[in-house]
């Protein structure tokens, strides 16, 4: 007979570790089946929309597609295990499309209710599971679930390196660097005006360093590298300003032109800078330069909306990318082919017939293929 313990509920959402989570869950269910239980696994997609909302059909379709994908994966796993396929029962469902869900509490209530209805006693959570959008909110969800009668477990998966935990442990180097920076900032604001400011500054900097040093750094600042980076960053600023002014003039001309001669396109560029701070710097620099706007950063792939061809060309020439590489990795790293030469550019919305296509289609044709070998070369910096 089915004991409640043997039923597993798995909330799914598209994530980098979902595949591994499915693998783990099925493996676990098979183990239980081998012990004589009939194992049941329910994969549920919690709706972030309401069925009455306009446009919800597409959302639902997406959820259903994902569940189908999960079922296929689960099927692979079962085939691989080479056991009777009926020892493990797989179900999928879309739930929660009648209410708006706001908090982790709502999600937990819904999952618990579903689990009770189907006699499931255990939740396995994908560590990269996100409730809304792309914010990882697994901890609060797990906390809420733990308040209820469900056994909870986080699937042991290899996290992709691109996104570590936001909070890491603090180290003396991080603490001191943050302390020094906040102290300096405080003194600048106060105009270096004597003992009182010094004492309050130390107090403030201590608070800042204690509370924030575990979230402010990806890795330890070092005496050898960090000052150089700051210095190169200072060199970068005038160049960035120059770029901003030039493209601003171009964009201003276009906007003030009565014909409003714009040609917006969404483009995708694969960039080679380390994830985390370097990527943020690059994405923000691109956004800061008029005419290009980073819409989405998907690992190393930047979705950039460009307003005019001039800005698009500039983006594909990759000057900003080279500068960011220079700032973070030094002069050697700045000698790097442009995204156009690498074939890492793609115009997502095809140029219309009325416009000659600036040689971009060729870039599209071999885009992303010939460079797959370079993927590992840069790695995570």
């Amino acid at each position, binding site marked *: 007979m089915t004991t409640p313990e043997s039923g597993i509920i798995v909330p799914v959402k598209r994530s980098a570790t979902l595949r591994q989570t499915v693998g783990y869950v099925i493996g676990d269910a098979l183990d239980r089946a081998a012990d004589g239980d009939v194992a049941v696994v329910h994969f549920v997609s919690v709706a972030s929309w309401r069925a009455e909302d306009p446009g919800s059909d*597409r959302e639902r379709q997406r959820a259903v597609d994902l569940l189908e994908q999960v079922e296929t994966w689960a099927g692979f796993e079962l085939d691989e295990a080479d056991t009777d396929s009926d020892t493990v029962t797989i179900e999928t469902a879309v739930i929660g499309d009648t209410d708006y869900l706001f908090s982790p509490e709502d999600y937990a209530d819904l999952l618990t209710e579903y689990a009770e209805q189907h006699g499931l006693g255990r939740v396995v959570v994908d560590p990269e599971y996100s409730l809304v959008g792309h914010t990882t909110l697994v901890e609060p969800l797990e906390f809420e679930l733990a308040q209820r009668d469900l056994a909870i477990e986080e699937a042991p998966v290899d996290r992709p390196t691109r996104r570590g935990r936001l909070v890491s442990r603090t180290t003396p180097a991080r603490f001191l660097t943050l302390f020094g920076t906040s102290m300096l900032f405080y003194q600048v604001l106060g105009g270096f005006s004597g003992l009182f400011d010094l004492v309050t500054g130390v107090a403030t900097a201590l608070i800042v360093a204690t509370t924030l040093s575990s979230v402010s750094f990806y890795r330890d600042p070092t005496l050898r590298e960090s000052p150089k980076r700051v210095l190169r960053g200072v060199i970068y600023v005038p160049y960035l300003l120059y770029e901003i002014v030039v493209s601003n003039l171009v964009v201003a001309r276009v*906007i003030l032109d009565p014909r409003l001669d714009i040609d917006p396109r969404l483009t995708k560029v694969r960039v080679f800078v380390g994830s985390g701070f370097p990527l943020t710097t690059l994405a923000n620099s691109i*956004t800061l330069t008029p005419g290009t*706007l980073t819409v989405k950063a998907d690992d190393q792939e930047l979705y950039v*909306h460009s307003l005019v061809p001039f800005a698009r060309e500039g983006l594909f020439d990759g000057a900003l990318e080279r500068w960011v590489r220079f700032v973070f990795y030094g002069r050697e790293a700045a000698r790097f082919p442009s995204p156009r030469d690498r074939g890492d550019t793609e115009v997502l919305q095809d140029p219309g017939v009325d416009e000659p296509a600036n040689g971009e289609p060729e870039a599209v044709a071999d885009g992303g293929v010939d460079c797959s070998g370079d993927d590992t070369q840069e790695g995570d910096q």
Partner: protein
Amino acid sequence: MITTVRIGLIAVFVALGLFFTFVSATGVIRLPDVFSRAHTASQADTLGAGFALAAVALTIGWGPTAVKTVLLLFFIFVTNPTAAHAIARAAYEEGVEPWTKGDERR
């Protein structure tokens, strides 16, 4: 003599600041969709605010307050693209199709 140059420079900076802010406002009105508006709303504004702050710094003269205006500028440079990105990404994730040449104006 120095003061004249300085006042002149201040006037030029204020005028440039006004110009770019004006361009930004015009862009928000004229451009067709949320993505292209996000361009101009944040970016032209960055330069507008930048020149205005430069004028402020010049008016005040060298001192702690001028340093603070530079810091202000720095924070604008960090926050502005972040906000623009947030808006654009929100639109993208909602499934808003970017406007292309030949589409109807929305």
